[in-house]
């Protein structure tokens, strides 16, 4: 079944209450953690900003920004879009709006508590309440528990909706959504296993120390992008691209190949974060090989998306949702060419530990998956509130600020990071601190790009807020354009 191809009359009235709750949680955190991100970038030029305020120290707000953007913004927003598209793809109502609301409250509270614990203004070293100290695993055990319960509720709610579905055939977006729900549950438990807490309280610890700890950390760090953000983002894109373009999906079989190879290959990649590190050579090489195998799922997705938009490119001029999806698709292609090549030893020797990687990570999580989420929101929210988008112009500004800001941000980091990496291999001419000084102009450009991205986020949030609150014009209240499959531009 293709979402736009079937013209079955949709008799189900969707309440979409859970969509709204998860969406507003996501939008709130987008602005909050966006501000943290820009402060992080500015501190590169002004290291004494907030001097002597412990909880505004660079090294405490940096994980707050990264984790917050993933678990505070991206996951709730993708879940909101799941709540929108899964009942529609299944032809039934969401199993329980109440469970959806409770899950969002619990998840959001978990993120808030975790943020407080990482900022740690009370200076605690209690392992239950402090950061776990590993990249992407910072959220403390108490917050992990809350978020895991919330996730279990989300999985229950959506699987129960699946179980009642009226359409037998499962569309690609549904597999990806299921993959995201189940993989996240597995990955979250393994990655956030409180090994340090258990070690310090029981002494039963040899297996969670040293390189085992590092290997689990990078299994988790990579799966966070590959098995949580990727299936969630692709589920959203697989649904909203054909919807927004009002065109059938290019190939069903191709999406099948893409999904199963993604699941089978992504999990093997963790060790490519430790190339040339103190791990066995075979493990590094395995990770490199599997990094290259990722070309299969990536090109399946890219081919499918470009095939779908073929002949419909002119719509990009007026349709902001499509603009975001196609820009995201191009960034997805670029990030997935970068990823495997970075796993080559020769290139990794230069780029590892530099700002190149920061640019790369932002292309995946901002350039691709946040763009997909933006597109989904622009398409779904006018339909959820049954009103046209408040301002198309503001949405255009949002797109161009995000797009150009991101290009500035990432190109500065790639060029600067690569050159710094080269300088590190030339200790006769550069001391370490000279390479830091060399990076400063690039950090200025990065911060400027970051500010543009942040302004875009504010415009976006304001636009969606106004869409939700401003009363609908009388003549568009029953506008059929809002309920059929045409794009955002047609809706207003």
């Amino acid at each position: 079944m293709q979402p736009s191809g079937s013209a079955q009359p949709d008799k189900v009235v969707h309440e979409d209450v859970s969509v709204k709750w998860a969406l507003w949680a996501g939008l709130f955190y987008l602005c909050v953690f966006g501000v943290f991100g820009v402060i992080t970038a500015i501190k590169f030029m002004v290291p004494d900003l907030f001097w002597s305020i412990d909880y505004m120290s660079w090294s405490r707000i940096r994980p707050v920004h990264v984790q917050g953007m993933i678990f505070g913004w991206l996951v709730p927003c993708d879940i909101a879009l799941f709540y929108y598209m899964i009942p529609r793809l299944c032809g039934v109502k969401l199993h329980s709006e109440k469970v959806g609301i409770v899950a969002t409250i619990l998840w959001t509270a978990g993120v808030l508590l975790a943020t407080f614990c990482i900022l740690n203004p009370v200076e605690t070293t209690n392992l239950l309440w402090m950061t776990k100290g590993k990249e992407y695993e910072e959220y403390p055990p108490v917050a992990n528990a809350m978020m895991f319960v919330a996730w279990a509720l989300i999985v229950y709610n959506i699987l129960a909706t699946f179980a009642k579905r009226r359409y037998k055939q499962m569309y690609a977006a549904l597999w990806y959504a299921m993959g995201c729900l189940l993989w996240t549950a597995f990955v979250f438990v393994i990655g956030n296993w409180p090994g340090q807490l258990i070690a310090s309280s029981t002494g039963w610890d040899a297996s969670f120390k040293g390189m085992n700890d590092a290997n689990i950390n990078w299994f988790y760090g990579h799966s966070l992008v590959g098995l949580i953000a990727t299936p969630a983002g692709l589920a959203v894109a697989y649904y909203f691209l054909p919807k927004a373009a009002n065109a059938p999906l290019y190939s069903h079989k191709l999406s099948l190949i893409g999904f199963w190879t993604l699941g089978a290959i992504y999990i093997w990649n963790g060790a490519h974060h430790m190339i040339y590190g103190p791990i066995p050579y075979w493990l590094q090489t395995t990770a490199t090989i599997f990094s290259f195998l990722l070309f299969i799922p990536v090109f399946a997705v890219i081919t499918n998306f470009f095939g779908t938009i073929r002949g419909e490119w002119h719509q990009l001029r007026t349709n902001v949702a499509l603009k975001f999806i196609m820009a995201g698709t191009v960034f997805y292609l670029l990030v997935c060419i970068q990823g495997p090549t970075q796993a080559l030893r020769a290139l990794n020797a230069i780029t590892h530990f530099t700002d190149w990687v920061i640019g790369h990570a932002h292309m995946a999580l901002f350039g691709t998956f946040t763009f997909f989420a933006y597109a989904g929101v622009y398409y779904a929210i006018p339909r959820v509130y049954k009103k046209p988008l408040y301002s198309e112009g503001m949405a255009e500004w949002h797109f161009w600020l995000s797009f150009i800001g991101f290009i500035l941000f990432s190109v500065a980091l790639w060029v600067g990071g690569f050159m710094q990496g080269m300088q590190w291999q030339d200790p006769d001419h550069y001391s370490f601190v000279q390479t830091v000084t060399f990076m400063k102009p690039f950090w200025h450009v990065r911060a400027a790009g970051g500010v543009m991205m942040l302004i875009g986020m504010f415009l976006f949030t304001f636009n969606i807020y106004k869409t939700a609150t401003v009363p609908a014009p009388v003549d568009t209240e029953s506008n059929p354009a809002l309920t059929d499959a045409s794009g955002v531009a047609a809706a207003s």
Partner: protein
Amino acid sequence: MTCLGIALIALGFFIWKQVPEKSAFWTSAGIWLVFTIGLIFTLLMPSFNNNWSYASADDLGHYHVQYTDNPKHPGVWGYTPSQEHGRLIYQREGCVYCHTQQVRPLEGEMRLYSVGTSLAIPADEREYVYDTPHFLGTRRIGPDLSRVGGKYSNDWHYSHFYYPRQMVPESIMPAFTWLFVQKGDAPPVPTQDCKDLVAYVQTLGFGRQIYDGTTHQWRSWLKPEDQQGSQERSETAVNRVVPIKNGKLWLAHPVHGGDQVSPTNLVPPSQ
């Protein structure tokens, strides 16, 4: 290999024919299966490596100083209680986001982190067996720290934590003033947290040995004369700092912890 390849393709074709498109149950089962296979090969199998656990690694004494004074761990252990607490401070302050703890086996990198004529040797998995969490790191906004133990004096570290730019003018490291107590015009005094943190930082790579092929003996990678020269230079740098008052707090002030580390008392305990 050819047979294996053909078998794999045949297997792939067989699986392809079975792909569940319409069953939510079999889709979930497949999702679980591909996950578990990856888990076994990338997490479980590598963990059987002897050198990844202090319980099974050989020759640990050459890779990590063995302390005997940790009451929680009878026998020998990699950290004293003070150093273990220092690790918690390192964890809380997020040092790992800017500093790696691994020198890669690349010539430029080994020379970049060398001290005098002592070449910084690459990381070995046995150096980390006592570490939870691991602090390998992914970003070098600041330099690698895995060979920094013994390179600077304690007072250099205190002064540097108090205000990094008084020791390294181009540094962009945050000032960790909350690790110090300052009353009136008296100079800043490091708290116990700060002393533990420095105690931990001084263990990094310290006492890590290499096998010397010419003398057929294990020796510390950091030669005593390089260590002494480096520490003397860092003491000189501390004494050169000119105090600057900024409102109620000192912006710059040399910090003395009273636990002056001289090259002689930095010798690791008996191996």
